[in-house]
């Protein structure tokens, strides 16, 4: 899986992606806009979602950008790691968006699932899921959805989408491949000192 999120240059996407990058650059340059975005760190613009704070944008392939934005929120709520940037969750959901692009039933599962989650959120908090302020409230909503195939699909995909992303390994102190470096025989296999 490529963990390269960005847009135009990497994905070779068309004009819309360029526009997204353009807006990203604009927003990233605006301290006020970035600060205003803190409550909603990810914005929707045209066919893309934008994260000014982290300076990336992603043009969705199948899912409505609003759905994608909510899914990224949901991804963090399912596997919350405060030290991981939104980008990691967006990368993980990108895989699922791409799968939905060639599977109409899957696309419908995401759209309908998120619509259901939003409905629950509006009934309880008068706001869509992604804008419910407290994680604990959002998690309670997710628990109501836990048995739903939609929830299990999102969660299952995240297990590899997040934790098999080599970019995040160093953040967890996992060093990955070691044979090419000669293993750990001279690199600390027994270096524990605190025992």
């Amino acid at each position: 899986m490529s963990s390269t999120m960005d847009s135009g240059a990497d994905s070779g996407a068309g004009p819309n992606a360029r526009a997204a990058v353009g807006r990203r650059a604009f927003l990233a340059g605006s301290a006020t806009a970035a600060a205003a975005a803190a409550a909603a760190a990810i914005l929707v613009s045209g066919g893309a979602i934008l994260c000014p704070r982290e300076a990336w944008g992603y043009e969705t392939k199948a899912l409505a950008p609003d759905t994608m934005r909510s899914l990224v929120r949901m991804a963090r709520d399912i596997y919350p790691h405060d030290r991981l940037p939104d980008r990691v969750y967006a990368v993980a959901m990108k895989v699922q968006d791409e799968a939905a692009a060639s599977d109409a039933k899957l696309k419908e599962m995401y759209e309908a699932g998120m619509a259901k989650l939003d409905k629950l959120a509006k009934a309880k908090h008068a706001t869509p899921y992604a804008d419910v302020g407290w994680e604990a409230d959002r998690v309670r909503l997710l628990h109501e959805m836990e048995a739903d195939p939609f929830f299990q699909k999102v969660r299952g995909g995240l297990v590899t989408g997040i934790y098999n992303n080599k970019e995040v390994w160093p953040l967890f102190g996992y060093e990955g491949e070691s044979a090419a470096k000669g293993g750990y025989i001279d690199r600390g296999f027994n270096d524990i000192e605190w025992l």
Partner: protein
Amino acid sequence: MAAKFDLNDDSVVVIVGSGAGGGTLGTQLALKGIKTVILEAGARHEMEDFQNDEWASFTQISWLDPRTTSGSWRVAKDFPNLPAWIVKAVGGSTIHWAGASLRFQPHEFKTRTTYGDIPGANLLDWPVTLEEMDPWYAKAEDRMGVTRTNGIPGLPGNNNFKVMKAGADKMGYKECHTGRMAINSQERDNRGGCQQIGFCFQGCKSGAKWSTLIAEIPKGEETGKLEVRPNSQVLKIEHDPRGKVTGVVYADKDGTMQRQKARIVAVAGNSIESPRLLLNSASSMFPDGLANSSGQVGKNYMRHMTGSVYGMFDKPVRMYRGTTMAGVVKDEARHDPSRGFVGGYEMETLSLGLPFMAAFLDPGSWGREFTSALDGYDRMAGMWLVGEDMPQETNRVTLHSEMKDKYGLPIPDVHFDDHPNDIAMRNHAYRQGSALYESVGAIRTFPTPPYPSTHNLGTNRMSEKPRDGVVNKWGQAHDVANLFVSDGSQFTTGASENPTLTIVALALRQADYIADQMSKNAI
């Protein structure tokens, strides 16, 4: 060099599978000058091809053909199509195994006598004793280069072991060391010493770990008497009107059906595929499946009482560095019913990389309890708990009533329920493992459920009497003189030790028996 035998050569021994049982038996027969063909369902990867990458390696070497599960075991819920985590490749699950090579204890060959009548358990004494097996264990240990035998030093302890050892000392455990491992601690048998790479489960890239792929089969091929055909999945064993087997039908690499004639057939496809093959070989003469007059084929499936405990500390451990199974505590392996269960268990260090830790620590779990555990990944130490589980007739491999594989044959279903003894033992092991880590400062411990089975045993069990099992003390089918079982499916009971050393010892012993019987024209 490697032999090439004709499909119509009915003087060859055909072995189904190239793992610990089949790969060892085939090599040993070839070394004795006996013409042998090993048919291996998987591909031949060499050690340079192995990957230090858990998911990529999983996709590369695992047995991923469709299977179903049933029963109350948690694997059926979390991994409904992956009952077992085993390998489809030349070398079989010796590619994946951790290397722990422990002999059984004397009482583990006599469980019915020692444990008595345990309700729900189909216990039976082995038709073999430890005294009888000791010389074969000795040969296997020498062959595999097991540390702490034959003057071979133990492996050095890594960080994960050091935590285990410190905790074992605090607990008052007396038998904790870096194990008896078929991993070279120094150069031996033209293979180098362990480089502490980690990733033992993904195929050893240095060759320090014994596997039939690198340490047996090439020696067999050198004799000119052994041919290994990869990508060759055996679908049926055929027999003549007298009830002797005559050969096998297999799908070759192109999916084309081939018929290899044989003087003798030995089945070593691991404990799910081996009984499946016998059941799929049913005929008018053997309507319940080949070698199944006892009705025991596929029954008594065992997978060891397993579980893991991970302990989280406030300082780094980096358990993934170095040998995956880097040490053992043996004190709980004894039979001591005062603990509330019969049999015993080993505590062996284990580590998973971050990707597999996320998948296996608590499958299906989410939220901050789970992610805060993973946040401490580099501060974790881990151990696997592996103990004797009870054979139960209802734990079994059966042919699926509807689902077929790509060759049109019924796929296997694996049904498993824990026996109350298994549950009592697991709970005890969780408590002891957690206490061990807490004794050296663990701030949290995680009782981790069993992974998909790596030790698959018992589905073609050995018995003295034909009515109690499938094969005799030599692994020879009670019903068919020239049909053998050569893998862990012949285990009468599972013992608490990792099974590979015993599989290899049985294969070496079986090779002698087969050679003897052939020379006498008895088979």
